[in-house]
């Protein structure tokens, strides 16, 4: 049968408008929009895309289990493009135009610092999923990654227990390594450890022969590594070819997780320790389910890492706070959040009411020849977050130095 063309067009148009009105009315009645704001392009995309994927997985799972307050979560994904002003701009867009209930996003401290005033001005919520340098506690940010006393200080405790007393500090030249090293130096001074050297290289630096020469000449017991990104590849390759081994001089890293190991080359980094709160191999029932679900959704060859898990947790913690508050309204959610405790892949996490960070268990792991990380030490119980290190007498004066 031949249908006249105008009729077809009219029918199509009708169908389209019908769809439109359906979606709109649904948005008002049974959907909650949440923003996901990570770098999907540029230098940080490698890391941040995986966090977004983990957050999308959490949203999926929550929706499958019936959503929040009977409503489905709808992610609005934006690209921060590894550019800090873009993060601020996209955050504004998510809050004002999309009117999202909460934003999950950021990785670098620079992106968080760029977004912070936006969230405070609009009294909107940001959930930030990455370990960072501490010394911050915004009422409109929840920090689901580690602060310094849940990663760097346990890392130092571990080295001290291993009898490594003479350290060399190597880091990228920006806020996190410099702050971390200030804390490390104060810790060393208070605990009879010696800092033999402190070196910074620009982000993206790849020529490490001079630095390796300095490190090997100083003969430290261990190196504390706060290098970020691609520099780690060059540093570990060149360290290994200079003959340094994980046995003679372990390099403790705080920015290398499962994702990064492949690119560095397992050969170059196996045996070196790292400090995080979560590994793909962490043995909890929740983690088994998380790893399985992640691989099922994104591919069997994918790995899970600490920041991904922290992003995944952030969505669940926010959803729990919304349930407790009975609304997505920001101030009510903020009031409901403190004390919320959930069994997550990394174990029990609890939202601290004072600083909106999480109680987290610190874990030291050693990189295995298969690229995964095996835990060799943990703090035994979740550590209370202390972003300003008020509980550490030796750190007095550091907080003021921000």
């Amino acid at each position, binding site marked *: 049968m031949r249908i006249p063309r105008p009729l077809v067009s009219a029918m199509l148009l009708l169908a389209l408008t019908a769809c439109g009105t359906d979606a709109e009315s649904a948005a008002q009645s049974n959907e909650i929009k949440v923003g996901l704001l990570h770098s999907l392009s540029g230098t940080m995309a490698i890391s941040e895309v995986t966090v977004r994927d983990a957050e999308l997985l959490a949203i999926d799972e929550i929706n499958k289990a019936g959503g929040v307050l009977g409503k489905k979560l709808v992610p609005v994904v934006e690209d921060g493009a590894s550019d800090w002003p873009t993060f601020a701009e996209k955050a504004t867009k998510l809050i004002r135009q999309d009117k999202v209930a909460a934003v999950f996003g950021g990785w670098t401290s620079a992106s968080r610092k760029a977004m912070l005033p936006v969230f405070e001005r609009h009294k909107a919520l940001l959930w930030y999923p990455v370990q960072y340098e501490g010394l911050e506690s915004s009422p409109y940010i929840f920090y689901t990654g580690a602060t310094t006393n849940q990663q760097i200080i346990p890392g130092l405790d571990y080295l001290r227990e291993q009898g490594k007393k003479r350290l060399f500090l190597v880091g990228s030249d920006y806020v996190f390594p410099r702050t971390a090293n200030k804390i490390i130096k104060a810790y060393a001074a208070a605990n009879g450890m010696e800092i033999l050297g402190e070196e910074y290289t*620009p982000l993206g630096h790849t020529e490490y022969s001079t630095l390796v020469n*300095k490190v090997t*000449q100083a003969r430290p017991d261990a190196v504390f590594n706060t290098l970020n990104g691609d520099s780690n590849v060059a540093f570990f390759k060149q360290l290994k070819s200079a003959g340094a081994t994980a046995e003679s001089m372990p390099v403790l890293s705080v920015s290398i997780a499962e994702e990064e190991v492949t690119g560095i080359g397992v050969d170059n980094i196996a045996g070196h320790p790292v400090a995080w709160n979560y590994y793909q191999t962490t043995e909890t029932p929740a983690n088994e389910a998380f790893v399985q679900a992640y691989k099922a959704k994104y591919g069997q060859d994918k790995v899970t890492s600490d920041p991904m898990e922290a992003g995944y947790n952030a969505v669940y913690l926010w959803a729990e706070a919304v349930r407790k508050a009975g609304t997505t309204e920001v101030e009510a959610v903020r009031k409901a959040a403190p004390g919320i405790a959930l069994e997550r892949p990394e174990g029990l996490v609890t939202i601290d009411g004072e600083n909106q960070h999480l109680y987290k268990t610190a874990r030291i792991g050693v990189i295995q020849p298969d690229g995964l990380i095996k835990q060799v030490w943990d703090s035994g119980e979740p550590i209370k977050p202390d972003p300003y290190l008020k509980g550490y007498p030796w750190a007095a004066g550091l907080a003021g130095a921000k």
Partner: protein
Amino acid sequence: MPAFVNQLPIGLSIGAVLLLIALGLTFTFGQMGVINMAHGSFIMAGAYTAYLIGDLLLALPAAFLVAGLMGLVLERAAIRHLYARPLDTLLLAWGVSLVLQQLARDLFGAPNVQVPAPAWLAGGIGILPYNRLFIMALAVAGVVAVWAYLTRTGLGRRTQAVVQNRRLAATSGIDTGRVDMLTFFIGSGLAGVAGVAVTLIGPVGPALGEVYIVDAFLVVVAGGLGQLRGAVLAAVGLGLLNSYAEFWSDASLAKVIVFAVIIAFLQIRPQGMFVLRSRVLT
């Protein structure tokens, strides 16, 4: 050995890396005047060739061919139409480099890949690991090969003739189009070889080219356009400067010092260490 003595071979090895990544650019930028922003992408193509082949020695000629052919296609398809418009070729080559970067991301994924170093490069002599010595040897071999090509072969002499005076060369019966094509092929191929070499020391990812492109241009500009001996001297000089500046300060400051020295140097000698006297350039 005192640490500062160690910095001498380290400086030379940094110089060798600089020389190797700049060698191809002395052709495409130096000889032909194309501000070849795609040079970094050809280095990346070489590195990924090494990743695919897995064997370092086999990867060297393969990367030369792969990157060389990519350069050839770029020259034939686009750049040759824009020889009279240097700024347009800059934009074009930059655009191509972005496309190639994204292509690598789609083909190989955004995360870095691992190129295992061959077992025979494990270990070293004194402060210099074998892989650094390998890069130095490769750089020397590259310079000798380029020198021999330019001065000892008919094609090379024709290349020089075209650089020095294109119209006269054409009048003498040289097919300048073919020479351009070949020059671009060799320049891009050398970038591919450099790409294989840098897999020994650095990360291999889609953005690899960006790491090296600035250094490559610095060497060629400081050495003087189209001057092989200038590129050699500039690379070794910058390598040593970098090595000692970083040794006595730190990596960030060393970068500042190197840039400052280059800027000061170019104020005194805007055309680099050596100047090619030719009618085209003057």
